[in-house]
């Protein structure tokens, strides 16, 4: 059993047995049957719980006359993602705003958790970005099917000229599946590289200097969360747009 955070040990103590038996029912055998919950998963749960608590607080204290700070923050986030979605998806973006806002906030807080010394950001393990990229892929394809109908959406893949479809169909399919890979690797590699950078400078000069790279890490976290959201929006806009391309 590797070194883990107190939270992970606590969760494993409570749910370790149940999770292991569930995983074994699904045919997955965790490397450490005593501790199937990893640090990344425990932190993800923590972040999700914090975000849900934040939204519950905002929902319960909504007020037009006296908005509290939580409501101000929520409105700022809403305006930001709404403005972006309006620019990229255009008309009718409100349907998709909830998903992209969730993606943005979840990726952002998962990245920023890594700023606490001694806590690895969950996104530095490749499983977490993969778990975000697959729902994104399923979601934009689902919305594409819903917006254009099965025939209309499948025509997207065939390209503009019908007698070139046999050539373009495999290319389009590969490029769509490559989106999962590129979303995953972009987030994972960026967070991992900036973590490694901080660690490298910490091993060179353990005082003062690494804090500069923590600042860089914060910047990279925000930019990567923004880009994940932006790419989700772009994929959505490509999937639901009615113009022939």
């Amino acid at each position, binding site marked *: 059993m590797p070194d883990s955070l107190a939270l992970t040990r606590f969760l494993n103590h409570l749910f370790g047995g149940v999770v292991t038996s569930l995983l074994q029912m699904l045919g997955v055998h965790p490397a450490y049957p005593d501790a199937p919950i990893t640090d990344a998963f425990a932190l993800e749960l923590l972040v999700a719980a914090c975000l849900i608590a934040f939204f519950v607080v905002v929902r319960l204290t909504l007020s037009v006359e006296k908005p509290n700070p939580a409501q101000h923050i929520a409105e700022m986030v809403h305006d930001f993602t709404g403005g972006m979605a309006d*620019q990229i998806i255009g008309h009718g973006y409100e349907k998709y705003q909830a998903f992209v806002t969730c993606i943005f906030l979840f990726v952002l807080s998962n990245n920023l958790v890594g700023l606490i010394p001694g806590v690895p950001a969950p996104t530095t393990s490749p499983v977490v970005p993969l778990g975000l990229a697959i729902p994104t892929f399923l979601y934009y394809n689902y919305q594409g099917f819903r917006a254009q109908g099965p025939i209309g959406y499948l025509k997207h893949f065939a390209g503009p000229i019908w007698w070139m479809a046999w050539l373009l169909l495999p290319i389009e399919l590969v490029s769509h599946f490559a989106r999962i890979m590129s979303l995953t690797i*972009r987030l994972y*590699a960026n967070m991992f590289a900036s973590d490694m950078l901080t660690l490298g400078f910490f091993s060179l000069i353990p005082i003062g200097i690494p804090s500069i790279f923590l600042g860089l890490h914060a910047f990279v976290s925000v*930019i*990567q969360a923004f*880009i994940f959201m*932006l*790419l989700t929006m772009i994929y959505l806009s490509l999937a639901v747009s009615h113009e022939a391309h």
Partner: protein
Amino acid sequence: MRKFQPVFMVLAVLCCAIPAFADSGSAAINLVPIGAGIGMALAAGLCGLGQGKATASACEALARNPGARGGLMIFLILGLALIESLTLFTLVIILLKVK
């Protein structure tokens, strides 16, 4: 200075030659870090060139038409991220292959 040039060249060759002579007969050199370094250097350098070109065009466009700031920022950041991700693919390949 010019007449010393042959001397320096000979010295440089000797500097290269002495470790080569000393190494003969010992164990094989581990080329993995060198390969990883060259790969990452190529990727990072060319990524820098590409990002520089993209940023330069964005700055020019912004200077010509300051009103287009919002739309320009999105595409600049998106383009930089897409260029950078190619370098990071290299990094991931290196991490996978170098044990």
